[in-house]
């Protein structure tokens, strides 16, 4: 049996972290949780996840900064980053082009309010 993939969920809304985590665990993923950008980077350094589900607006270090840090690190850049954002129209223009023309360093993004089933599909795609 293949090893369960680790997903890191990062959002400053603890209830949202819980809701996403429960859904992921029901789909047999291992889940780590973080509630701001600094804590997210701490967790990533302890164990590298397959996917990071990352909120944008967070205290201490926002999602853009975390995403940049991951994607600019040779050791971490293969981690798939899925941004949760309500500010889709201000997604930064960098290397990846999303289907609707928005671009970001992240591998994908889901606009808020998020559709959990859509998020699960995206996570599944990045883990396959």
């Amino acid at each position, binding site marked *: 049996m293949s090893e369960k993939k680790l997903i890191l969920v990062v959002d*400053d*809304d*603890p*209830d*949202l*972290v*819980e*809701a996403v985590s429960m859904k992921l665990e029901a789909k047999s993923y291992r889940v780590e*949780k*973080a*509630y*701001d950008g*600094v*804590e997210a980077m*701490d967790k990533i350094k302890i164990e590298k996840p397959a996917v990071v589900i990352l909120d*944008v*607006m967070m*205290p*201490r270090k926002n999602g853009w900064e975390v995403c940049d840090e991951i994607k600019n690190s040779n050791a971490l850049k293969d981690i798939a980053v899925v941004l949760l*954002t*309500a*500010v889709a129209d201000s997604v930064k223009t960098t290397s990846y082009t999303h289907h609707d023309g928005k671009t970001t360093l992240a591998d994908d993004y889901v606009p*808020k*309010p*998020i*559709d*959990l*089933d859509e998020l699960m599909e995206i996570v599944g795609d990045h883990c396959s």
Partner: protein
Amino acid sequence: MEINRGRPKPPSPTIVSYNTRGVFISFPMSLLQIRINGIRLGSRLNQVIQTSVDGEASPLISPLYKLLAQDRINIVSLGLRTDPSGTSMFCCHDLPSGCKFDFKPDIKKKVASGSKEPQSCIVSNVCTVSVYPHNASLNTLGFLMSLFGKHGVSFQQMVSSHAMISFIINRSDQERVLAFLEQEFDLPPTHIPFGQFENENAEFVKKRYPETRATYVEQRIKTYGIKLDAGLEMVEISFNPKDQKYLGFCGNGLQQLAKSGKKFYFTASMTKSHDMAHLYCLTEPLAFQEKQYFPSRDKVTKGLTVCPSVSVDLISFHGPHFGDRFGIFNTAMACLNAAAIPVLLAGCTGASIFMALPDSLGQKALPALAEGFENP
């Protein structure tokens, strides 16, 4: 807003113990501390308490949540309890910068007139302190209760969400509560308590948090799913909130229950009068032996009553930006009222709503709530 407290965390206290051969050993307290991820602070809240409301039954009576919805006022935290003596509830709402700690006079009058008892509308200057995640642990809940008792601080109300336990306390106690929580819990080394903005005008907030200030107009309110936990047991303990030893007593009982592997599904505590508070805890059904962790059941013993537990169904749901929107709880109550489903206990904090219903009515509540909410 981050609160840079500029105060280093005190060194971990050391527990001294002896092994079986009488050899002195010591180890840091952090090995025994409960791990949590964070503390969240909310400030500048108005708390309003309304007692003996008959809900929708009488057109003369206006439940507080309905008044707040009509005035487009967001509820930050809410607790509601209906028992044979009537309905009591508290609501906390935040205040824009520059507002006085008071309720709008016309609403205050309506709240008071909607209650059977005089002096039923109490307005006070409070704030919230929340810890997360609780992981449904009765040990964490019991420890928190004991901490308040140990440090001699009363909380006015308490309510849990899927991840947080929020305490509503006097504003003047916030620093003290934060200090003992930071000291007694095992927090991440880089943790800084996260505080909600204060003294920020609406424009600043809008600029800083554009995503959380949107107002959605939906035919049916979006949720991340409506969950039903059927056949739970609701334990109710009434105590004098001024006497701190009862907090320790409750905490100890809950920690004993945790040892038998039980978890909680929802918890709330409401102070209905100056000398009576009620703690509610919903767990899986308890064995006879487990019920003895709270002795003197059915008896009043020196200011503390453990009421006979009742079987309930628990409905809970969580939605995008629930914490920033008005009228959501009112919609949930309207859906259940329309289906003649009574709500025994309810609570909101963060972005979650929990409603305890009489046993076996949970299945009926799901289609009733679907009238107002999307359940993907």
